[in-house]
C-alpha cells in the first residue's frame, strides 16, 4: 500500500504550461508527500533541472520554449552528477510519439489526463531507481576512499600521492610553474612505539597528520609514504616558499603536546624540501629521492629541523669536482 510518507521531502519538478493540469498535479503530489517545483515553459524546466535536489520530473510534451523530448535530450547529454528520472506527460497517443519520447531519454510516459493511482505507482518505480543509484554512488565513494586513503591517518595513501605528484609534475612543466615536495618523518618515532606501545604511536601519527593537514594550503596534498614517513606535494610553490611552509609545520608540531594514555607527549619532525622551480625534466622518483636526502640531512644535523635540496647546484658542484 502506498502511504503519504512514501516520498519524504522528495522534490519533484512539474513542467506543464496548462495551469489546470499543473494545479491538479501540484495538489496531488503534495498530498503524497512531495515538495513540488513548478515550471510553465521549457526554459523554466531546464533551469529547475539543474538543481541537484530535483531527481524526479514530470515534463509535458508540448511547452513553450522547449518541448519535453528536447529537454530530455539535453539533460541526458548534460553533466548532472546524479540521475534524473523523467516521466513525460502528453495528450498524444500515437505509438511513434512514445518511441520519440523514450529515445529522447524519458524513463516513462503517460497519456493525459493521467490516472493518478498509476502515476503514483510509476513515480515509486522512479524513486526505486534513484534510491538504487544513490546506493551505488555511496558504495563507489566508499571504494574510492578505500583505494586512495590511508586507513589510519586518513591521509592519501602511497599509490595516490605518487600518482598525484607525477600528474602535478606534468602540469608544472606545461604551465612553467614550480612544484615542491616535502618529505618528513617523526623524530624518534620508533622509541615512542617501543616505550609507549604501538597504539600510542598510532595516536601520535594521527595527531601529526591533523596538524599538517591544517597547516598546508587547500590545494596541497599530504600522503603517507610508509611507516611514519609522510610526503606533501605543493603545486605552484617554489623552493623558498616550501621551506617556509615546512618550517611552519615543524614549529606547529613541536608546539603540540599530544595526549595519549593520560600523558602528554612532545613530538618533533624533521623535513626535507625540494622544488622543481629551476630544474628540467625532473621525475617524481627523483624528487622523492632528493627530498629524502634533504630529510637525511636534517636528521644528521640534529633532527627537529628543515633542510632543502637544491639539486641543480649540487649536480653542478659534482660536475666541477
Amino acid at each position, binding site marked *: 500500500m502506498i502511504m503519504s510518507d512514501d516520498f519524504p521531502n522528495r522534490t519533484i519538478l512539474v513542467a506543464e504550461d*496548462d495551469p489546470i*493540469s499543473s494545479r491538479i498535479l501540484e495538489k496531488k503530489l503534495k498530498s503524497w508527500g512531495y515538495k513540488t517545483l513548478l515550471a510553465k515553459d521549457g526554459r523554466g524546466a531546464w533551469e529547475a533541472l539543474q538543481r541537484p535536489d530535483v531527481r524526479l520530473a514530470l515534463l509535458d510534451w*508540448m511547452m513553450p520554449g522547449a518541448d519535453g523530448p528536447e529537454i530530455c535530450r539535453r539533460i541526458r547529454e548534460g553533466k548532472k552528477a546524479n540521475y534524473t528520472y523523467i516521466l513525460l506527460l502528453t495528450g498524444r497517443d500515437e505509438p511513434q510519439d512514445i518511441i520519440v519520447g523514450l529515445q529522447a531519454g524519458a524513463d516513462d510516459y503517460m497519456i493525459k*489526463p493521467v490516472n493518478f493511482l498509476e502515476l503514483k505507482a510509476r513515480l515509486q518505480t522512479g524513486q526505486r531507481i534513484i534510491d538504487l543509484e544513490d546506493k551505488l554512488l555511496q558504495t563507489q565513494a566508499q571504494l574510492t576512499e578505500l583505494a586512495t586513503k590511508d586507513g589510519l591517518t586518513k591521509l592519501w595513501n602511497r599509490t595516490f600521492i605518487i600518482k598525484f605528484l607525477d600528474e602535478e609534475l606534468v602540469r608544472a612543466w606545461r604551465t612553467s610553474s614550480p612544484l615542491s615536495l616535502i618529505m618528513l618523518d617523526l623524530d624518534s618515532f620508533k622509541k615512542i612505539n617501543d616505550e609507549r606501545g604501538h597504539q600510542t604511536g598510532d595516536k601520535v601519527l594521527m595527531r601529526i597528520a591533523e596538524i599538517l593537514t591544517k597547516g598546508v594550503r587547500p590545494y596541497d596534498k599530504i600522503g603517507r609514504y610508509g611507516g611514519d614517513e609522510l610526503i606533501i606535494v605543493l603545486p605552484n610553490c617554489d623552493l623558498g616558499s616550501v621551506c617556509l611552509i615546512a618550517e611552519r609545520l615543524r614549529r606547529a608540531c613541536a608546539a603540540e603536546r599530544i595526549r595519549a594514555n593520560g600523558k602528554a607527549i612532545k613530538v618533533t619532525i624533521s623535513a626535507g624540501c625540494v622544488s622543481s622551480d629551476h630544474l628540467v625534466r625532473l621525475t617524481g622518483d627523483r624528487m622523492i629521492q632528493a627530498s629524502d636526502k634533504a630529510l637525511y640531512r636534517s636528521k644528521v644535523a640534529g633532527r627537529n629541523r628543515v633542510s632543502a635540496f637544491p639539486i641543480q647546484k649540487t649536480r653542478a658542484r659534482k660536475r666541477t669536482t
Partner: protein
Amino acid sequence: MTADSGIPMNKAEALDRLDGDKTFLQELLNIYAAEYAEKTGAMENAIRAADFRAIRDLGHGLKGSSANLSLPRLQDAAFDMETAGLEKDLEGALKALNRLGHEYRRLKDFLGTP
C-alpha cells in the same frame, strides 16, 4: 476523443478525479474561465494573422485543460481548432472558434454561472 455525452461537463468524473473536492473543482473552473478567455482571444489573433502553429498550440492547450475538467464538448471543439492549425485550414479554425464560444456558453448555463 472523449465520447460526446451531450452534456457540457461530466461533473461526476471530474469530482472523482479530484477526490470529491468540490471547492477544488470550483478553483479549477475559475482558472479555466481565465484560461478560456486568454486562449480564445489569442486564437482570434492567430486566425487573423494566419499563424497556424499558434492555432494548433492554442487548440492543443485548451483541449488538455478541457479534458482535465471532463468537458467533452469543449475538448472536441478545441481538438477541431488544433486540427485546423495542423491542416492550415483557416475556415476550419473559424468554425472551431465559433463552436468553442457556443460550447462555453452551454457550460456556463450548465453550471449556472453568469
